């Protein structure tokens, strides 16, 4: 079942064209990894899908509706965001809120869920990412890996249809990267639909149902899981995979 589709997405920053007509289809339960060199537009693509950047051209099909990206109304944006989760490279936890309240805020404030029910839900997702024992702590008291796991819990708490991960481990050392990837692996196995912009080739190989390779603002090639890595078709993809193999 198709959950999300992007058609002909264009985005310019001043005169620099970052996305030059990107198409992407995500089925329910897909784990889509987006690979590509720096500056290829991976992050911008994710940010446009969630309206953190305003696309210049393109359509988004989400669920049963089609939205013209540059002209999506504020209400539509808000309702789309309420059905999606976003995990940032720099975690972006709310510095003035405890771990627990970082997770409950999207429930109590944005969805008017009763505080008690929100806390139960928050503890449930915090348990899932192994952070329930830190519920009373502030983000500044946690390691990067712990902060990112809280950020994942925050995204999970609202029962999203899909979670976007924007280079979730790029700010972490290998050990902390492993603990975050472990959580993501578990989500993938549970059938959570995810789009992951990542540099972790081995993670992408292991978990993805679909791999998308981007370069210079375009999708160069896409393939299914391991097949993509074993039989790359385009020269640009082969080059990238050769360079990232170490």
């Amino acid at each position, binding site marked *: 079942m198709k959950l999300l589709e992007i058609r002909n997405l264009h985005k310019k920053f001043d005169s620099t064209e970052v996305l030059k007509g990107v198409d992407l289809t995500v089925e329910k339960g897909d784990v889509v990894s987006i690979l590509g060199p720096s500056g290829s537009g991976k992050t911008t693509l994710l940010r446009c899908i*969630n*309206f*953190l950047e305003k696309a210049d051209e393109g359509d988004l099909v989400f669920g049963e509706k089609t939205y013209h990206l540059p002209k999506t109304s504020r209400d539509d944006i*808000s309702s789309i*965001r*309420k059905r*999606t*989760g*976003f995990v*940032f490279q*720099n975690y*972006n*936890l*709310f*510095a*003035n*809120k405890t771990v627990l309240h970082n997770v409950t*805020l*999207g429930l109590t*404030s*944005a*969805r008017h869920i009763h505080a008690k029910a929100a806390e139960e839900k928050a503890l449930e997702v915090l348990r899932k990412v192994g952070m329930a024992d830190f519920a009373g*702590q*502030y*983000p*500044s*008291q946690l390691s990067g890996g712990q902060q990112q796991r809280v*950020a994942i819990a*925050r*995204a999970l708490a*609202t029962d999203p249809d899909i979670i976007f991960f924007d280079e979730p481990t790029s700010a972490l050392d290998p050990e902390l990267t492993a603990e975050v990837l472990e959580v993501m692996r578990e989500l993938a196995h549970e059938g959570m639909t995810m789009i992951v912009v990542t540099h972790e080739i081995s993670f992408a190989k292991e978990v993805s149902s679909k791999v998308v390779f981007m370069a210079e603002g375009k999708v160069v090639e896409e393939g299914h899981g391991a097949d993509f890595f074993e039989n790359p078709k385009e020269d640009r993809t082969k080059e990238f995979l050769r360079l990232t193999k170490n």
Partner: protein
Amino acid sequence: MINEKTMELLISSFPKILEFGLKVTLPLAVIAFILSTVLAVLVATVQFAEVPVLKQICRFYIWVIRGTPLLVQLMVAFYGLPLIGIHANPFVMAVIVFTINEGAYSAETMRAAMEAVPAGQLEAGYCVGMNFMQIMWHIILPQSFRTAFPSLFNALISMVKDTSLASSITVVEMFTRTKQIAGQSYNYLPLYIEVAIVYLLFCTVLTFVQKRGEKILGSYGVRK
């Protein structure tokens, strides 16, 4: 230098000076400070949210108020407000002028503090489904208050002393009262030193309140 007569004058005048400090100077400063902080939050939020037109109006307000002397603003209000049908007593008028004056400065303090909150937290707020005002209320304002607090308190301490300017629009506050007593006794210097000490006392108490306030606002787990 201090003879018995001066000593007696200092002792007998102390409660009178203090009375006007507690009844006029402090209330004027504290009420105007609270109102100016509310005004500052509104003006800063309009700019932070980039509200068209309103933002330009806010910049204009800040430009005019910061570019003219407080004393002149008091005078303009004193002679100008009655012309447009506003007849307030001098104390209320002083509160209005101090509020508007301090609001312009504090608005800049608040705006800087809002902009100091990492933009990613605003984005994260949107991504969990919150709207701008919800993010302002739960995320941006609490953090920017913590950042702005010492500067805002600076403003309050300044204002306690600037209230003496209200004498120019016939408000009898602590300094004016001191001048009156000094005029009656022809013994100026000791009384001015005495009132200086009372101002110092007020500001010392406020500094203590600031310290407590910073503790209460907390630092979100950052070890100091």
